[in-house]
């Protein structure tokens, strides 16, 4: 598959932007400016970005808590992300929910909620709506290896299979559910082995190779769009930091992290871009651009007002 340099630079831009924003949020967290939990997807950016870039604008996504890249590709602005982390009125939840617990249907993003795997049946229902209305849109549900142990994973994937719905199930297999390694989560080798239970195609790919993710998503999306039903894509990756920033992840073997540090999706992609002969200048441009956007985002967020207490009472019901 031969992508134009501009497409590749778009990937690069989102990879850098995602990594940069999350590194910045970690700083803010350490400075005590972030309340509540601090969740990042360091090392898993290629999964979110490669897949989201393979979708149409009106395809619907249900990202999980390691999918900042999906939000950005779908149109969420860095400043919105920052404002949400800082609990400001200018964030997508107006301070009602924290960190990456947000969504925005104007960008066709279904909001993430904490109970793992809950987004799977919900994304399935979005796909059902498209099928009923004969729209050529698809839905994509994102989740982790841990989430795949939940009943909602089983019920959601089965429903999608039985109704042949246009949906992709994209799993970040980062080898841990909080402190629990795969071996204590499942007695099979791959999360995809679980997905075989539903009767639609499953794939296992290198989640740190953005081109592989893009390609696999494109192919599965085409099938879903043409009535071919769901596809399960297991993206092998590694959670490179703690479950959240409070967690030093001392339970993860050093060697494992070292091995995967050598497989960083951004460094790897940079290497590829150089091979493709993309001039350094273009890469630098992206980095400067990203840096600028991040600082603007932080400034915007920090300058943004907090909501008034009274706003807590608003909007329980739609009118």
């Amino acid at each position, binding site marked *: 598959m031969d992508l134009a340099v501009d497409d590749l630079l778009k990937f690069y831009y989102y990879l850098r932007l995602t990594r940069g924003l999350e590194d910045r949020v970690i700083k803010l967290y350490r400075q005590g400016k972030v309340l509540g939990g601090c969740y990042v997807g360091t090392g898993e950016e290629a999964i979110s970005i490669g897949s989201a870039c393979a979708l149409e604008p009106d395809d619907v996504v249900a990202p999980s808590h390691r999918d900042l890249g999906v939000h950005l590709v779908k149109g969420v602005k860095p400043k919105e992300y920052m404002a949400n982390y800082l609990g400001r009125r200018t964030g997508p939840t107006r301070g009602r929910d924290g960190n990456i617990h947000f969504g925005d249907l104007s960008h066709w993003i279904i909001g993430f909620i904490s109970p793992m795997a809950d987004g799977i049946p919900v994304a399935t229902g979005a796909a059902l709506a498209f099928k009923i209305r004969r729209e050529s849109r698809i*839905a994509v549900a994102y989740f982790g290896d841990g989430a795949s142990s939940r009943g909602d994973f089983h019920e959601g994937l089965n*429903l999608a299979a039985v109704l042949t719905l246009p949906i992709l199930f994209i799993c970040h297999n980062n080898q841990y559910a909080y402190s629990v390694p795969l071996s204590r989560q499942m007695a099979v080798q791959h999360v995809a082995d679980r997905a075989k239970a539903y009767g639609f195609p499953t794939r296992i790919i290198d989640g740190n190779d953005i081109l592989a993710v893009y390609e696999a998503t494109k192919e599965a999306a085409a099938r879903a769009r043409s009535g071919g039903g769901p596809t399960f894509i297991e993206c092998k990756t590694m959670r490179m930091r703690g479950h959240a920033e409070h967690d030093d992840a001392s339970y993860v073997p050093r060697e494992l992290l070292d091995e995967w540090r050598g497989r960083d999706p951004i460094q790897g992609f940079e290497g590829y871009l150089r091979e493709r002969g993309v001039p350094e200048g273009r890469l630098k441009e992206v980095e400067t651009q990203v840096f600028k956007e991040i600082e603007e985002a932080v400034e915007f967020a920090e300058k943004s007002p907090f909501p008034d207490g009274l706003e807590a009472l608003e909007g329980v019901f739609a009118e």
Partner: protein
Amino acid sequence: MQKITYLEAIRQALWEEMDQDERVFLLGEDIGTYGGAFKITKGFLEKFGEDRVIDTPLSESGFVGAAIGAALMGMRPVVEMQFADFISCAFDQIVNMAAKYHYRLGDPVPLVIRAPYGGRLHAGPFHSQCPEAWFIHSPGLKVVAPSTPYDAKGLLKASIRDPNPVIYCEHKYLYRHAKGEVPAEDYVVPLGQSDVKREGTDITLITYGAMVEEGLQAADQMSEQGIEVELVDLCTLYPFETDTILASVKKTGKVLIVHEAPQVCGIGGEIAAIIAQEAFRHLDAPVMRLTAPHTPVPFSAPLEDYYLPNAVKIAAKLNELVSY
């Protein structure tokens, strides 16, 4: 006007809403070919087709979650729980996903979950439960519980047209036992309004669902003794309306609240607390409650009869209030 059953009223509401709004569709177990465990959707598959009348696998959390997703995409799903008892299998999707979505993100979740609930059919602990209080206590949900065919049809239409998740509690005993007049033309009974089903001056009786008919019978008995009971049917359990209740209490000074759900943390306690706070000076007697005891719903006839409130027990309580 046509005189129809509560079941037929629900059927008509579903049929008419599906007929006039193609965003409305049905999800549930055995609702298609079979027409539903209570035959409410009989003929719907033939009329509206497989895309809008969907027999799901046995997976409440899965299809409630799917209904939420479809609602977010602008559809108007109506989910049938085969029995309200199984709504607990979808509890997380309802209270965490559906209930909190609009508050957090501002997007409406127009979803109706039909919950066939209640006892008196000797169906035992798992086919007789009253789940309403769990959902009343969960911010972001509306809860409805009609007592007559007229209300059943009008409230279901209002629920389907409402942009929020609504738990529609339909009482299984009333399906075939409640008959009443229902206009042929389109109408709704707005959510959030209670309804005085009987006017009276001496005691206010507050209830809903299958206990309304029991309350009316008790009221007639009392009337023979010259005691006029005013019966307020809550109709919507959340957001419930207090003006009618308080006005009635201020008139009568005595209150009995009746429901079939267990007492502790039921809606009865909530209403009693509100009355005790808002109408304190107007009370001539303590606010009394008559509910099911704090046990599962037993199966065998003598046990369930003992368990459930009924006209006789209501009349006895009303007499207590009289002689207070």
